[in-house]
């Protein structure tokens, strides 16, 4: 098709199709990595792989679809400082936002998102604290007593 006499030496149907297939395959690889028990056993391995794959895909798109492969050196002027600034911003967020929980006070932790607790070791085998299990019923507050006419389900 357009490769012949036209002003664009870059890109042919064949190139575009190969890039397309490569992108699909790379997406499949990301998917496989995310679902692989072995690679996600240490999540940072899987995450790094997925990000590397994404960077590869981005490179393919930029080089072939956006024709940067065929552009003059101005491409570096516009892309490299930009990426540097973006990376700088992210790195700058690290110490306070990224490491924010390191600065949490005890009070702040009381409001923080609560991860799922491991089964508590201090729990009696019955799971019921002695106080509640054997306390005379007279001490039970009315708060947890359902209306008397509520039928037991």
């Amino acid at each position, binding site marked *: 098709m357009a490769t012949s006499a036209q002003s664009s030496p870059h890109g042919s149907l064949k190139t575009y199709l190969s890039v397309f297939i490569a992108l699909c395959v790379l997406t499949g690889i990301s998917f496989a990595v*995310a679902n692989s028990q072995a690679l996600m056993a240490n999540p940072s391995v899987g995450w790094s792989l997925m990000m590397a794959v994404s960077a590869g895909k981005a490179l393919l*798109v930029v080089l072939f679809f956006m024709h940067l492969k065929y552009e003059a050196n101005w491409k570096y002027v516009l892309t490299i400082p930009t990426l540097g600034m973006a990376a700088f911003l992210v790195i700058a967020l690290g110490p306070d936002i990224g490491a924010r929980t390191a600065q949490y006070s005890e009070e702040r932790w009381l409001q923080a*998102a609560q991860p799922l607790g491991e089964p508590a070791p201090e*729990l009696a085998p019955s799971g019921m604290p002695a106080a509640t299990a054997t306390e005379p019923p007279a001490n039970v507050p009315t708060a947890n007593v359902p209306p008397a006419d509520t039928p037991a389900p």
Partner: protein
Amino acid sequence: MTDRPHDDPTHAPSGVTPSSTHGSHGGDDVGHDFAHPVAGHHGHAPITLEYQPALPIPRGKLCLWLFLSTEIMFFAALSGTYIVLRFGAPEGTWPAPETVHLAEGIGAFNTFVLILSSVTIVLALEYARSNRRGLAKFWLVLTAVLGTLFLGVKAYEYDQKFRHGIYPQHPHGRIYERADLSYLAATRMRLQEEIAALDAALTGATPAPVEVMESDPAEATSALLPPMSGRLAAADAGSSHASANADVGADVPAGDLSAEQLRARRETAEKLLAGGVRWVEGEVATSTNDAYRRDLMQSLGYLVYPREVARVPAIASMKREQAALNEERPTLAARVPELEAEVTAAGASFEDLVRKQSELDERIKTLEDEIDDLDYDIEDAEDAEDDELVEKLETELEEKEELLDEVEDERADLTREIDALRPAKAVADANLRKLSARLAAVDGRLGFLREHLSHLEHADAGHLHGLSDEHPWMRLPIWIPSGNMWASTYFLLTGFHALHVLVGIIAFVVMIPLTLSPARAGALENVGLYWHFVDLVWIFLFPLLYLF
């Protein structure tokens, strides 16, 4: 074009000289490459005054690339912030994709759609360059269609989130960071509100709506709605239409609910309130065992909005509780006759004394009557001047008065005794009442645990179907650790991306009616560059959001 211009493009901006040949180069920035005239003369030409463009590319393309570099910073900052927030969240809290109803498959499909649309737009450009306008138009239209498909899938995904109460912001958002007291209180209040609304709907359904309309305009509006209160109807409207409810039997459109269905809903809500929320609140208030309190609240949170990681601990803690309650129950049941006997005994002696008291009251009355009679008799005798009789009667009167004093003393003693006994009886009564209430509560909780444990154990592993899915009409608060931060960043990232997709589609639609000749290739290239960038962003968003 691969032979790049001799002079460094970065030095070019200062290269515009006064007598530059504006006529030959200015104005046209579409499909014209400025590199050639510069490259053609490099090195050999004598010093002629010549216009040098800032960069050896058309101005439109230059502007677009400048715009794209700001866009790169914008999206790099956004997704970088997402990464920083995600990995900075308290450990183990960031929601897994399935927790927040993100389906990898759907994300992958959308990735495919965008990649495909990148190919189609690049084909449109190539055909426009080679002046095959029909084909160019075909690929351009296809690109627009693919972009729209992407947005459609995105809308479906958003709908899934909204349906489950995942919003970036209150009041719609129902996400709680912790299964704590405020979560419990919010759940209780929601249930109470729902029950009140159901009650209103149940009672409001009976009177004829016409009468209401005539009397009160405010009520008339709600009467115009199907036989539910306005609030309930509104609550259901959000979650009632569409396929997700096909598997939720109870969740039919609000208007179709019969009184029976309303009552069934009310019963379900009551059961959850009593056996779930109120029980947990009571235990949490009285227990001193922090682990037990935490387990109780977390298992409630899990039942409402289950997460795979929480499944095993939740089942374990519920089983522990079940075992403990099963142990407690016979002790409680054994105490019932004991307390009943106490109450009866206290009641029996109490009644005995009360009976004696009334007997004494009668005796006092009789004595007082007799004294009155004697007084009259004495007066009569004095009138008759029968001194002997008067003396005799007066002695008798004195005896009676002494007796009355004695009986009154006895009665006072008895009253004191009864007063002493009264609190003991009240305590015995209260104890029995509390014991029965506790027994009923334990039975209710055991029933609740039995029902939900069997439900949990029989559900196929990995299928997360909680109370919030089963009864979407309850709109229960949901416990998703770091869920608010997740929702904010997710909607911000995907929302900005979707806006870019929308802008791209608009650009395509604007270009579709144009003749896609080589003269338009420049414009098409620019739109294409923008579109590839949108694809590029998604390439990073997909693994970040769906796979991490």
